[in-house]
Every structure is written in structure tokens, then in C-alpha cells.
């Protein structure tokens, strides 16, 4: 698959590395992908703030920003500039050092996590053989940053917000990792490049071998997305900065550039987690249809990434927010059991690989789907039914 277009970026990098003196070549070979990642994803962050506001606007029958530049394209520039020149207020009682370090501790680890994501064919910054382990290790520090922000601001609201954030992120780290384990088990390797490799090719010539098209893969993708939404504090789970309750949670005492850094960190976290979701379940940079193989693989990765971004915006525009204790119940009483069931279904899927009679694929699919649907309905009803939730009928006065 060595189409000329495909390897353009890789050959460009190799050509650049050759330009500089041999002593610095190793360093430059590492710096170029790092610079590329930071540049691309920072501008994607800017674009997403615009997409978010325009998307929310369209969901709500209005236009969204369209005054700054044509169709509001320069709005992110305006927001960025505003954030830069706004006064950076630090409360007198705040613990200055921790208050300053919190946003940095939020952004840097998330950028680390991008090192292992395969953006395209042979387009991965560092090809770890334990890539996913590194990703979760780097990604887990955001809780620390949030609590540093909450604690150091010495403010009641920020303390409440920080406590909520800790509880939420710890509870959703477990289902996030376990739902990722299903893809690792299926691909048999911790390296993201191998996982994407195992999803190459097509069933019957048209259905791509993505994990998402297997029962456990589809369930895994759903559970992974829910856990990812909670990890990145997005809408059904944006409790740490529940605007209508405790204003901006741990971000209450932040303003100016530190506030913008926090948002950069949050959005980068969102892209990283959805990037991982794409790599594990949606075939990373593989094309969905054989006819479109000629399109460079990077484009597919970013197309799927925009799909995830739109999903997050769509969720943000529709769903109300969960309460902290409901969040906990949902995580521990629904997500964790479902993820364990999903691991079991992956095992069943793996060991029924040897079925070769006619219609084996369909039968395996049915068995997997049934094994998942049963617990889903039972757990869902137990979570809701337990407190008699459900639509009610109303009578009228005589």
C-alpha cells in the first residue's frame, strides 16, 4: 500500500531529518513529530471552540458566532487574544505555587499521551510496544491537576468542585481501562500500532474488520465513549464545573491565560481519549470502504476524530447533568459490571473463532449480542427500577 500520497508526510520527515547535521539527527527526528502534534492539536482546539459554539447554536435554532471574520472563523483568535490580555487574578489566600502549577500539570501530561497514538500509516511519534499502558499512565494525572486547582484556590466552591472531580475521575478510570482491554485482548498486543494493524482488511470484501463491528467491540465502543465523556468532564458528566450549581467548580478562581490553559488541557484530553477510541475500535487510520483506499490515512483518522467531536457537542446540547451520587451509582453499578461482561463476551468471541460451519459469523454475532443484551437490560432496569424511576401516568381531577 505504498501509494505516493500516503507516505508524503513520512518522506517529508525523513527528508528534513537528513538536512540537519548527523549529530542532531536523533533529536530532530524526535522534535518534528512533537512540534507537529502540538501545532495540529492546538489549532484543532481553537477550531473546536468555534465548532462547539456554532454546533450548539445550530442545535438551538440560532446561528452561533458569525461576526468575527467570515462565518465567525476568526472567533477562536478573538477568544485566544481575549484570554491573553485578561487580568490574571490570584486570590490573596491562594497557595501561589500550586495555583500557578495546576494548569501546567493539566496540559503537559495530556500532550505526552499523544506520543503513542498512530495518526496514520507509519505516522506515530513513538512506537511503544506497551503504547496503551503509557497512554493511561500519562492520562491519569489530570485528576491531580484538577485537585491542585481546587485546593490551592482556597474557595468553598472550588473545593466542592475539586472533590467532585476526584470522585468522578477515579470512578470512571476503571471502566475506561477495562473497556480498552477488550481491544487489547482481541488484538493480542499492547501496542496501538499492532491493534490498528489487526483491524486491517475487509469481511466479504466490503465490511471493514474493525472491532466496532463485533458485538463486544460495539459494546466496548459505547462503554468506552461513555467513560471518555466522564473522563474529559463533558456534558452528562460535567459536574466538576456544573455552572448552575457551583459556578465553575475548581476553575472559579482562575482567569486570563491560566483559565485558557485549563480549557486547552480539557479539550486536548478529549481529543486524546477519542483518538484512542478510534484506534481501538474504529480501525484507527483504516479507510471504511475499499474503494476509498487512495485517500491518505491521516485524513481518515481526523475524519473519525471530527465525528467524535460532533458527538460530544451533540451530547452537550441535549443532555442534562447527572448528580454526583447518581454518577457514582452509574459508574460502579452499571459501567463496571457491563465492562466485565464485555470482557467475558470477548473471550467467548475469541474461542468460537474456530467455528466454520455455514453462517458461523452470524451465529457468533448472535451469541455475543445476547450475552450482552441480557445484563444490559437487567442492570439498566435495576439501576433505574431500584428507585422506581420511569414515566408516570397522570389522572385528572373529577
Amino acid at each position, binding site marked *: 500500500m505504498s501509494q505516493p500520497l500516503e507516505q508524503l508526510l513520512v518522506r517529508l520527515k525523513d527528508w528534513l531529518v537528513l538536512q540537519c547535521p548527523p549529530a542532531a539527527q536523533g533529536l530532530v527526528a524526535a522534535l518534528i513529530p512533537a512540534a507537529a502534534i502540538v501545532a495540529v492539536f492546538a489549532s484543532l482546539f481553537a477550531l473546536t471552540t468555534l465548532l462547539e459554539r456554532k454546533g450548539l447554536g445550530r*442545535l438551538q*435554532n440560532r*446561528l452561533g458566532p458569525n461576526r468575527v471574520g467570515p462565518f465567525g472563523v476568526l472567533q477562536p483568535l478573538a477568544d485566544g487574544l481575549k484570554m491573553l490580555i485578561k487580568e490574571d487574578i490570584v486570590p490573596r489566600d491562594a497557595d501561589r505555587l500550586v495555583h500557578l502549577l495546576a494548569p501546567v500539570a493539566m496540559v503537559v501530561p495530556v500532550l505526552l499521551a499523544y506520543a503513542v497514538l498512530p495518526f496514520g500509516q507509519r505516522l506515530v511519534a513513538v512506537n511503544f510496544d506497551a503504547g496503551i499502558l503509557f497512554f493511561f499512565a500519562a492520562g491519569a494525572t489530570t485528576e491531580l491537576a484538577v485537585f491542585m486547582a481546587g485546593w490551592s484556590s482556597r474557595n468553598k466552591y472550588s473545593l466542592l468542585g475539586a472533590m467532585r472531580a476526584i470522585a468522578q475521575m477515579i470512578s470512571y478510570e476503571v471502566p475506561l481501562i477495562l473497556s480498552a482491554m477488550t481491544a487489547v485482548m482481541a488484538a493480542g498486543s499492547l501496542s496501538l500500532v499492532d491493534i490498528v494493524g489487526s483491524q486491517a482488511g475487509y469481511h466479504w470484501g466490503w465490511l471493514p474488520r474493525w472491532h466496532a463491528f463485533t458485538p463486544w467491540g460495539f459494546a466496548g465502543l459505547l462503554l468506552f465513549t461513555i467513560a471518555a465523556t466522564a473522563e474529559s468532564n463533558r456534558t452528562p458528566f460535567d459536574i466538576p464545573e456544573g455552572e448552575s450549581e457551583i459556578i465553575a467548580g475548581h476553575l472559579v478562581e482562575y482567569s486570563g491565560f491560566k483559565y485558557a490553559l485549563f480549557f486547552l488541557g480539557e479539550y486536548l484530553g478529549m481529543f486524546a481519549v477519542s483518538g484512542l477510541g478510534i484506534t481501538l475500535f474504529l480501525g484507527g487510520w483504516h479507510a471504511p470502504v475499499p474503494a476509498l483506499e487512495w485517500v491518505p490515512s491521516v485524513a481518515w483518522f481526523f475524519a473519525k476524530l471530527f465525528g467524535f467531536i460532533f458527538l460530544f457537542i451533540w451530547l452537550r446540547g*441535549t*443532555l442534562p447533568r447527572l448528580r454526583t451520587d447518581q454518577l457514582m451509582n452509574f459508574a460502579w453499578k452499571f459501567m463496571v459490571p457491563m465492562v466485565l461482561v464485555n470482557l467475558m463476551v470477548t473471550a467467548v468471541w475469541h474461542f468460537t473463532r474456530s467455528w466454520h460451519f455455514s453462517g458461523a459469523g452470524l451465529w457468533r454475532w448472535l451469541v455475543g449480542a445476547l450475552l450482552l443484551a441480557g445484563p444490559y437490560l437487567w442492570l*439498566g432496569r435495576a439501576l433505574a427500577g431500584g428507585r422506581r424511576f*420511569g*414515566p408516570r401516568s397522570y389522572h385528572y381531577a373529577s
Partner: protein
Amino acid sequence: MNPPPGLGIVKGLVETARNFVGSFHDPARLTTVQYPDERLPAKENARNFPFLVYDGPDSEKGLRCVACKICEKECPPQCIYIILERDANGKPQKHPRVFDLDISVCMSCQICVEVCPFDAIKMDTDYELSRSDRFGGLLLTKAELAKPNDYYRRIHPTEAQEVDARLEEERARAQAKAKPPAAAAKPAAPAQPAPA
């Protein structure tokens, strides 16, 4: 048997998706009016702040207001201030020398229009009234308040027709009454007889 869990959320998502897609083709689903470029046509009965109506070309003499101070008494927030015009030897004239209206206090309730027996004060529909000076700027004097009758006919067409018809008929009745005693042809009609 209530529906499988998660169906309610999916239905909600479908609803917002319909609005998202609808906002591109269905005008009912995109309600933004981009204000300075597009403007909603003012409703005919719309009212903002009062203005004084004058007939004929000259805003001083043609003013319908006779300074009877009924509107000043009836105005709930008391934002109208009238001083009667007196000629050299103090005989009260039939105009106001000063007619101030403080639009920072006025709440555009149009009670002055209702109680005015001479149709001298009507409600304007102009809402772009921002001023730089908070005190003096919002205190409109008689000159700023006076607007011609055809401006009134333009913003409130049907209402203006009725008012003009009534004034016309009153003027005709007054002239008919004034003509038999063949007094000097100064009709006692309250409004200035200048032909509209």
C-alpha cells in the same frame, strides 16, 4: 413494561438532531434576526416613548398641545413637566412654553395618550434612543418631542386615520357653530385650524 433504559436519551438526541438538520433548510428552525442588517418590521400598535403631534409646517404654532396638564397629572411616574405660556400681561395662552418629558423615567405605558382629550401626544415606535449624557440627554424638550402629523400617519396608519377623521369632523362642527353668530372667524375649535 417500561422501555429499555437509554431509549429516552436516544429520543432526545434524535429531537436535537432534527433541529440541527432543520436549521439548515427550515426557516422556522432558524429564528436569528441579524439586527443591524436585518430588522423586524415594527408592529402597527407598537409603542415606545411619547411624542407631540403638530399639524402643518411649523412645529411651534401647529402644536396640538394646549398645556391643559391632564397628562402631567395622570402620568404614573410623573415624568412630564409643563409650564403654560403667558403673554406680556400674563394672560394664559393655549400652548406650553416648556414641555419636558424625561424618558429615563417614562415607562412607555401610554396612559398620557389615553387621557389626552386633544390627541396631542402619541406613542412613537423609534427605539434607537441611546444618548451619551445620562441626565440632560434623556430629558427631551418640546422641540425634540414635536413631530409632524404625517410622521404619525406613517407609523400608526389606521389610528392616525381615525384621529384625523375625528378632528376633521370636530373642526367642521366648530366652524358650523362659529359661522351663524358671524363672529370674527376665529373658530373656538381647540385644535389649530391649520389644514392638515
